[in-house]
C-alpha cells in the first residue's frame, strides 16, 4: 500500500516522534527546549513529505499504471520555473514566526502569503490556458501586470523614501553635507558620461541602477539599525518663577535657539532694553514711537523680539493675570547686543519686565 519512498519518510517521522518523546521524558525542562522543538519539527516535516510521496506514488507512474504514462501529472509538460512556491513558503514561515514574535511580522506574512498564493494560482491556471506557451505567458501578463506594476512601483518608491529618511535622520549636519555632496557629484559625473555617448549600453545602465539601488537600500537599512542621531531640544522660553523673576538666575536657556525662523517677521512689537536702563516697545503700526504700553488681543499668539542693548545679560519676562491666574513666560538670558524671541498668549493684562530693572516696565493691555 505504501510506496517505498513514503515508507522511508514515514519511518523517519515515527523515529523523530519517538526520539522527541524519549528526549522529553529523559531531559529536565525538555518540554520547552529547542531540542524537543527541533525533533517535533522533524516529525512534522517527514510526515508531510511522506504524505506528498504517498499521494503521487513516488512519481513512479509506469510501475503502477502503464496507462498513466501519458495522463499522470508527472508525464505532463513541466511548468515554468517559478518563485511563487518559495514566496508562499516564506509567508507560512512568517506566519509562524509572527505568531510568536511581533504582530507586524504576522501581518506582513499574511500579505506575502496571499500575494504568493494569488500569483501561483494565476500562473498555474495560465499555464493550462492553451497549448501555446507564448500565449499562456501573455495571458498571465495581461491579467497580472496591471496589478503587479503599481504595487511594485509603490513598494520601490516606499523603499527609496524609507532609505532616504533613515539616512537623513542618521547623518548629522556635516556628514549630510559630505554624503549628499558626493552623491550629487557622482550623479552629475554619471550624467556627463552618459550624455557623451550617443547610445548608452543597456547593460551599463542596468548595472549602475542596480548598484545605486542596493547602495541606497543598504545605507538606509544600516542607518535604521544604528538609529537616528540624537537631536538636542532648544527651548527658548521658560515659565518658572525662579528663572523669570529672579535677577541673575544661573539657569540659562539656549540663547542660540530660534523658536521659528518665520516668527521673527510679522511681530507684534520689538522690545528694546536701552543702555540707560529704559524698556520701550516699538509697536507695529507706530513706527517712530517708543511706547510704554502694548495692547494685545485676548488668547491670540503674541510674538515679540527682545533686543538687549544694555551692557549685561538680561531676560524679558511677560507677567499676566493676578493671584492664582498669574502666568509667567520669559526669554533666555540674552547677551548684551543680542536678541531673543518671546511668544505667548494672554487672557488678562499684565506687564513686560526685565527682572531687577526698577521702573522699567511696559504695560500689557488685554481688552
Amino acid at each position, binding site marked *: 500500500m505504501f510506496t517505498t519512498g513514503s515508507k522511508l519518510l514515514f519511518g523517519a517521522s515515527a523515529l523523530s516522534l519517538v526520539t522527541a518523546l524519549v528526549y522529553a521524558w529523559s531531559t529536565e525542562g525538555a518540554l520547552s527546549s529547542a531540542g524537543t522543538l527541533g525533533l517535533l519539527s522533524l516529525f512534522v516535516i517527514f510526515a508531510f513529505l511522506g504524505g506528498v510521496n504517498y499521494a503521487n506514488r513516488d512519481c513512479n507512474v509506469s510501475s503502477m499504471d502503464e496507462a498513466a504514462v501519458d495522463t499522470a501529472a508527472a508525464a505532463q509538460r513541466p511548468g515554468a520555473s517559478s518563485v511563487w512556491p518559495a514566496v508562499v513558503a516564506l509567508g507560512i514561515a512568517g506566519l509562524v514566526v509572527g505568531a510568536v514574535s511581533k504582530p507586524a511580522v504576522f501581518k506582513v506574512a499574511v500579505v506575502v502569503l496571499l500575494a504568493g498564493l494569488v500569483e501561483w494560482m494565476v500562473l498555474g491556471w495560465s499555464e493550462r490556458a492553451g497549448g501555446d506557451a507564448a500565449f499562456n505567458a501573455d495571458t498571465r501578463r495581461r491579467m497580472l501586470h496591471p496589478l503587479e506594476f503599481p504595487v511594485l512601483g509603490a513598494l520601490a518608491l516606499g523603499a527609496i523614501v524609507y532609505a532616504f529618511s533613515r539616512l537623513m535622520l542618521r547623518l548629522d549636519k556635516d556628514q549630510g553635507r559630505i554624503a549628499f555632496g558626493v552623491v550629487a557629484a557622482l550623479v552629475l559625473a554619471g550624467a556627463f558620461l552618459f550624455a557623451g555617448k550617443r547610445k548608452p549600453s543597456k547593460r551599463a545602465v542596468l548595472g549602475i541602477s542596480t548598484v545605486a539601488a542596493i547602495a541606497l537600500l543598504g545605507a538606509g537599512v544600516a542607518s535604521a539599525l544604528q538609529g537616528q542621531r540624537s537631536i538636542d531640544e532648544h527651548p527658548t522660553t521658560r515659565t518658572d518663577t525662579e528663572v523669570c523673576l529672579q535677577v541673575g538666575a544661573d539657569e540659562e536657556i539656549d540663547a542660540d535657539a530660534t523658536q521659528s525662523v518665520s516668527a521673527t517677521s*510679522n*511681530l*507684534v512689537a520689538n522690545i528694546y532694553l536701552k543702555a540707560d536702563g529704559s524698556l520701550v516697545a516699538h509697536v507695529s*503700526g507706530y513706527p517712530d514711537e517708543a511706547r510704554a504700553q502694548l495692547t494685545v*488681543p485676548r*488668547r*491670540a499668539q503674541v510674538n515679540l523680539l527682545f533686543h538687549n542693548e544694555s551692557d549685561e545679560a538680561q531676560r524679558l519676562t511677560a507677567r499676566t493675570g493676578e493671584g492664582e491666574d498669574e502666568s509667567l513666560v520669559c526669554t533666555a538670558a540674552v547677551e548684551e547686543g543680542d536678541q531673543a524671541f518671546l511668544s505667548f498668549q494672554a*487672557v488678562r493684562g499684565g506687564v513686560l519686565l526685565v527682572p531687577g530693572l526698577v521702573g522699567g516696565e511696559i504695560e500689557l*493691555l488685554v*481688552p
Partner: protein
Amino acid sequence: MLVKPSRRAAAALAGLGLLLVGCAKDAPQDTFRPAGENARDIDGLQRPLFYVAGVVGLIVFAFIGYAMWKFRDRGQEIPEQSHGNPKLEIVLTVLPAVILAAFAVPAVSQVFALDKSDNECVINVTGQQWWWEYDYEKGSTCGGVEIPESIVTAGELVIPADTPVLLRITSRDVIHSFWIPRLNGKRDAVPGRLHTLRMHADEPGIYVGQCTEFCGLSHARMRQAAVALDTADFQAWVDNQLAPYQAPAEGTLAAEGESEYAAQCSRCHQVNGLTDDSGNPVLAEPDQSVLAGAAPNLTNLMTRTAFAGWTFDLISDECRDRLWNEPSETFGDVYLQGVWMYTPADATTPACFNELNLREWLRNPPAMKPMYTDPDKLEATDGLTRGMPNLNLTDEQIEVLVAYLLERK
C-alpha cells in the same frame, strides 16, 4: 457632431446672462467702485490691465473661433502637416513678454506706493471662526479723536472718514482673510503673525466685505463691514462706546433679562460695566467654552446693524436699504441711532429693530449658522465649541434677554 440650433440658442442666452451679471448696480462688494485712496490706486492699476487683457483675450478667442470654423471637419482630406514657424513663435513669445514687462513697472511701483506710514489711526483686527473682532487701543488717537479706554466691538469696523487707518490683523484659530473691496485689497489673518492693511474711506458710508480665506463650516457666513463716520460722528461713537453702563430699570423685563444674561450669556460674552450681586465686575471667560477663546462683546450690540459674523440683520430690510443709500452728509446721524434709526421721537419701540432674527438666533444659533457645537462631537477640542451652542432657552428666557439686549445701545 452637429449641435442643434435650440441648444446653441440656449448656450448663447446663458453666456449673455453671464455677461449681464457684470452690469449689476446693487453690488456692494464691487471692486470697480473704489471708495477710498488705496482702493482707487488699485483700481487705477487693474482697469488698464483688465482692458488690455480683455483685448488680448478677445483677439485670441477670435483667432480660435475663426480656426475652428474655417477648418471644421467637413469630410475633407487632412491637409499637409507642417512643424514649426520660428518667426511666428518669436513674435508670440516676445509680444506677451513686452506687455507683461510694461505692466510690471506700474504694478511694482504700486506695491511700494501702498506701503505708507502716515497712519492717523491704528485698529487691531482679530479673526476667529466665524466673526471679526476690532479693538481700539487705550491711549491712542484715531483721526484726531482720543481713545481714553480700550474699545472692543465686533462685525462692524467703525473708522473716521477721510483718514488713513492702519489695521493690525491676526487670527485666534485658523487662517482668515479680511477684505473690504471698496476700500482696499485683502489681507490674510494668520495665527501667530501680525499683518497690516491700510484703510481709507473718502466719505461717510457703509462698505461691505467678507472673509476670503476658506476657514471652515461657516466661512460663507463670516462677513464684515467698515463704517466710515465724519470726525464729529466718530467722536460721538467713541463717547457712546465708553459711556457708563446703564442698568435696566427695576421691575422691567430688561431687568429680568440682566439676571438671565448674567446666568446664561456672560460666560462667553462681555458687557462692560455689568456687575454681580456683590458689585464685582462680571468678566466673561470665553476661553473656558469656545476654542477661539473669544466671543463678541455685546456692550453696545444695538449700535450695530448686523450680528453673528455680520450675517443676520439687526435692522429690517427696509431700514437697511435706506441706511445704505443715505447721503454721506446724513449717514452718520442715522447710523448712530442704531436700531432706533428712522424712529419717530415720540415712539417707544424702535422702528427698525429686526427682533425676529435675534429671537431665532437665541432659540437655536446652530440652526441659523452651521457651527461645531454638538456636545457629542467635541472630543477633538476637549469639549470646546466653535461658535455658539444651542442653550435651549425657553420663550420666557428669550423674551427677557431680547428686552435686555435692546437696551445695549
